[in-house]
């Protein structure tokens, strides 16, 4: 109690003392003698270095607007203006709150204005401060692009000195976040200006230039296509990147160079079977996933690798046997490790921070690895506790992990064998169903897509899923605004209806409602239309089912069929529709719906004479079913 009483006033007195000295620094900025002002700024510079508290105090006391004023005054000496920029840069080095205050004081336009000065030292000081402000996550990057003259001016300053090179490339690397940014930089010859910096003698410049290329090329075909033709000192850019991936180079450099090549490859600028991808980029990224790398590097490495090989089965095969990647990834799930929890709080904190990121990266990479090759899928599911990890990943709090886990599950669900075995053993449908109840659209798309596969006829999970009230859920998906969700919903219903019991079929028709069914038949998305037709076809199979459904919904179905056959549709859609008609013709009573419809018979006749063989076949199939008699069938 005593201690408390004593301590409180003491703290206040210390604080007021600090504020007093800080105030003194600020007061000196208003001295009428410019020489005193300069000395005041220099003293302030020395006082704030490495002292976050002092920085905060000065900001609170309003030093920033005054410093900015002095910096902008053309009457100030260059030395004073430079020192002001240095102090501001120092203040920016503090906490995120400092940056926010600086940005609120409009430091960015002031410093950008300063770049128009001719003095290199002053320009460098402004750039250094701008760099520090822009690399902070709290600074809106858009501020770099508001004035259209800024980017060209920065480009012109680029080659002035080693420092301008480093700061400007660093600013670009951090502020290029959208395709629009990429285009702006590209249109101002960023590539031609930055490419020579890749062979700069300064490590820092090389690294920042490389980072620029990775953000410029990301998902940008125009940039990537340009990059392949760039020569640096007579050497192709891709070869420069390959050299930067050599194993004795800094890890950050290897990883960033691999990203550049990955983005160029994905944009189609480099073939996936090019040696620089197969023999260099891919192994480099696999190395980045190894236990020796930092957690951040492992996350980036795995994500980039997943992205690189996503569309190419050959890359997936190579990666699957490179350096035991599949089992190496299993280690991503062991954070925080139980040992670190006891021994080292700092380490635990670090592990915890990265644990989610690691898991989602591993799921992503597994998803990419297993997206095509059955053997790889088998290898993945056989990895220690893999299915358990996916199951628990599906219900993790982090949305990123859930999404990645369901992507992984989706990739593995393409395997008939896995559907029959591990998927059923681990009852993956349960967490999947739970996930479907309440999730953002991107998760829903993946989850419903996975569900489609789980509802395939041979999947043992089909039964329990049916029992869990999935039909209502799928029907509600078909009403979604997102075409992807509508497709998945109707697709799943189609799979479910395939060779299903009468009960299930009736339930589907009931739950969906004929109104919704016909709405789907006029869906603008062809995929939705195709799957809906597929559903109808599956519903209308085996004679008793056909007769039953046609007796209750015959009129509407015939209407819909007519509409589609008369409408502007692709061959596939028409073929599918004729197949439905053929199924209807197979019914005993349903047959009459066609036989009594002259118009329909004319249509069938027309398609029998159609130039497309597929449609001819389907129409003939129709006729064949129509003339088939129950009596003939049973002699």
């Amino acid at each position, binding site marked *: 109690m005593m201690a408390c009483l004593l301590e409180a006033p003491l703290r206040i007195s210390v604080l007021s003392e600090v504020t007093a000295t800080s105030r003194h620094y600020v007061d000196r900025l208003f001295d009428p003698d410019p020489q005193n002002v300069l000395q005041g700024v220099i003293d302030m510079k020395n006082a704030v270095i490495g002292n976050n508290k002092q920085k905060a105090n000065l900001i609170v006391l309003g030093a920033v607007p005054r410093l900015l004023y002095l910096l902008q005054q053309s009457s100030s000496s260059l030395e004073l203006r430079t020192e002001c920029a240095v102090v501001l840069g120092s203040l920016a080095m503090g906490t995120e709150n400092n940056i926010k205050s600086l940005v609120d004081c409009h430091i960015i336009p002031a410093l950008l204005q300063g770049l128009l000065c001719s003095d290199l030292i002053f320009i460098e000081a402004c750039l250094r401060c701008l760099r520090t402000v822009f690399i902070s996550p709290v600074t809106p990057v858009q501020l770099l692009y508001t004035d259209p003259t800024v980017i060209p001016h920065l480009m012109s300053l680029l080659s002035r000195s080693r420092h301008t090179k480093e700061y400007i490339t660093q600013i670009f690397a951090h502020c290029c976040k959208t395709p629009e940014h990429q285009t702006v930089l590209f249109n101002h010859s960023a590539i031609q200006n930055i490419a020579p910096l890749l062979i700069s003698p300064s490590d820092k410049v090389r690294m920042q230039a490389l980072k620029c290329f990775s953000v410029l090329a990301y998902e940008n075909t125009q940039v990537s296509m340009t990059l392949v033709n760039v020569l640096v000192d007579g050497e192709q850019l891709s070869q420069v990147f390959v050299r930067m991936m050599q*194993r004795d180079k800094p890890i950050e450099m290897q990883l960033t160079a691999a990203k550049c090549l990955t983005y160029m490859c994905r944009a189609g600028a480099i073939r996936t079977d090019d040696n620089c991808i197969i*023999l260099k980029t891919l192994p480099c990224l696999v190395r980045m996933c190894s236990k020796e790398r930092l957690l951040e590097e492992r996350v980036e490495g795995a994500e980039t690798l997943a992205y690189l090989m996503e569309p190419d089965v050959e890359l997936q095969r190579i990666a699957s046997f490179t350096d035991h990647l599949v089992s190496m990834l299993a280690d991503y799930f062991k954070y925080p490790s139980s040992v670190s929890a006891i021994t080292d709080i700092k380490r635990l904190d670090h592990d915890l921070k990265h644990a989610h990121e690691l898991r989602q990266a591993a799921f992503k990479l597994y998803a990419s690895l297993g997206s095509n090759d059955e053997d790889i899928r088998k290898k993945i599911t056989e990895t220690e506790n893999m299915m358990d990890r996916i199951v628990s990943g599906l219900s993790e709090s982090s949305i990123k992990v859930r999404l990645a886990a369901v992507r992984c599950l989706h990739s593995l669900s393409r395997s008939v064998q896995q559907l029959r075995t591990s998927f059923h053993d681990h009852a993956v449908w349960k967490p999947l169903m739970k996930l479907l109840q309440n999730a953002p659209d991107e998760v829903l798309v993946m989850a419903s897509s996975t569900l489609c596969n789980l509802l395939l006829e041979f999947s043992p999970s089909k039964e329990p899923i049916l029992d869990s009230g999935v039909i209502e859920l799928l029907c509600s998906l078909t009403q979604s605004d997102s075409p992807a969700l509508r497709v998945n919903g109707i697709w799943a219903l189609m799979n479910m209806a395939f060779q299903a019991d009468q009960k299930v079929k009736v339930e589907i028709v009931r739950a969906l409602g004929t109104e919704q069914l016909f709405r789907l038949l006029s869906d603008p998305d062809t995929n939705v239309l195709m799957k809906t037709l597929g559903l109808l076809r599956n519903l209308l199979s085996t004679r008793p089912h056909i007769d039953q459904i046609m007796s209750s919904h015959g009129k509407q179905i015939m209407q819909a069929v007519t509409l589609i056959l008369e409408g502007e549709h692709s061959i596939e859609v028409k073929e599918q529709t004729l197949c439905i008609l053929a199924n209807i013709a197979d019914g005993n009573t349903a047959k009459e719906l066609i036989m009594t419809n002259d118009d329909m018979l004319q249509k069938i006749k027309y398609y029998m004479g159609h130039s497309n063989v597929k449609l001819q076949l389907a129409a003939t199939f129709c006729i064949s079913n129509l003339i088939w008699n129950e009596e003939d069938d049973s002699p």
Partner: protein
Amino acid sequence: MALPSCQQCALRRALCSTTVPTRHCRAAVIRGYLTAAVSLLTKMAELGAGSLLTGDPAFSYQEHELNERLKRLYPAVNEEETPLPRSWSPKDKYSYIGLSQNNLRVHYKGHGKNHKDAASVRATHPIPAACGIYYFEVKIVSKGRDGYMGIGLSAQGVNMNRLPGWDKHSYGYHGDDGHSFCSSGTGQPYGPTFTTGDVIGCCVNLINNTCFYTKNGHSLGNNLMKNDLRPNLYPTVGLQTPGEIVDANFGQQPFVFDIEDYMSEWRAKIHSMIARFPIGERLGDWQSVLQNMVSSYLVHHGYCATAMAFSRATETMIQEDQTSIKNRQRIQKLVLAGRVGEAIDATQQLYPGLLEHNPNLLFMLKCRQFVEMVNGTDSEVRCFSVHSPKSQDSYPGSPNLSPRHGATNAHLHSTGADSPTCSNGVTPTNKNKSHNKYTGVSSASSSPSSSPSSVNYSESNSTDSTKSQPHSATSNQETSDSEMEIEAEHYSNGVTESSARIMNGTYKHQEILQADDSSVGNGVADDSCSSRQLCGGNQAATERMIQFGRELQALSEQLCRQYGKNATHKKMLQDAFSLLAYSDPWNCPVGQQLDPMQREAICSALNSAILESQNLPKQPPLMLALGQATECVQLMARVRSGSCSFARVDNFLH
């Protein structure tokens, strides 16, 4: 400027009035012989090819490729001690194995009914530990009937009627199931299967004692075993069914897998480990040890002013007093300048009794003196020249002009040998004097036109000399101390063998040094060889030399009587006298002796003897430490510590 070669020879013949073909002509003749010999050899190789089953005229080229690649990959391996595997051993194999294509192709010739018919072959030599990281590849030419192929390693003596990996001390990666076998009949799932057309590699990391395989250039990841690898493993392949054929690549061709990149990672790892070696609290101790090492090194070689400046800056103590250092410096300078007679006099004067107690050293010095007389450098013959020797540049062709080079670099040697003599001897071609830019240094007269045999050198040197002109004007008499300091950086030490190797620069390096030297002010810009004649071509000097030779012979006989026969002395004397048997001693089989670099050894021996007589260490601690480090690294190779290959001493000397 450059005369046509035949004209040069004609000119030279006229000048020397000798019928012996000059070096230039001889070179042409030798070239002719070589061309003939090479074509003959090629023909022989073609004839022999039939028996070698290759029919490959590029075989010698491939051999050359192999040597180059092995040297690049495993620079630390001393192949005389531990040869590298280059082919399969025709002796160390099971009878079901057939070899062809220079013992690189392996095929199966047994029945292949079951695993009892398995057969293996080992390479000719085990993998030396000094490789650090070793790699070889095998291409599957045909998987044969079943593709039961194993690629890996085994120790000497492991049963060859088996596939590698099945037995103790053997390891293998098998094609049929992709499993890895580590001294066990049951394999572990490891990688993909492999078959016809695949290239399988095996990498042994002797630093962390692991091994991994590659398939078509992709690393399959570390094997399950760790720290389990036996020493002295041989590359091994095993086959089991008819039709199986594999080709080995021990470096004959580029590898599919980028092994050099893998090595670079480990090199970087080990270098950073060395750089980050913790010294903890002893930082201060280390600093003073290092300072003492530098200081003692400077003192040892007599770089007096530098040593003093260094000791002032670092507050270290110098044990020897300045005069003593300067005396040694003076004597060393004399020896390095080839003025051995004067050096002997100075030694006897400053260190009485030293040479009397070291008759071997005295004999060595006298032999050298004789050689220098032939060279025309020693003052006893130089005094016959019209100009005072003192006025000459004191470092004619001093070793710093031509730093030592390994014996392998013959070209450099020949240029080195060119440089010294010319500058000293009195040139008979006095008419050239008018062209010469240094009027004060007549001996250095060598205008380009008068140096037919080495037009290129003289050309380049003439430009050098222009640059160095202002210096040469001042650099007469005894070279000043400060000059010595600068020069010292270049020639220096030559104490231990290792130091010699360390000093070997690349060719480029040497060029830089040469440029430096001339600007330092030696003004030895005259590589012309036309002036090179016995004892500078002076009759009196030659007579003096012959007389000196007799004295030397007498000394030898006296020593023989006193201390018994000494083979080294005999050889030394013979070599020295042999010089007289050739009309052009500089281009004779024993001409090497005339190279000014040869002065370094005797110079350092004399220096060491003086230091020893003063109770000071005869070798500087820095050189001892270097020598020890070099020895340690070599020892590491012998005790199979693979990291030695990436921790070589010369990697750290720049």
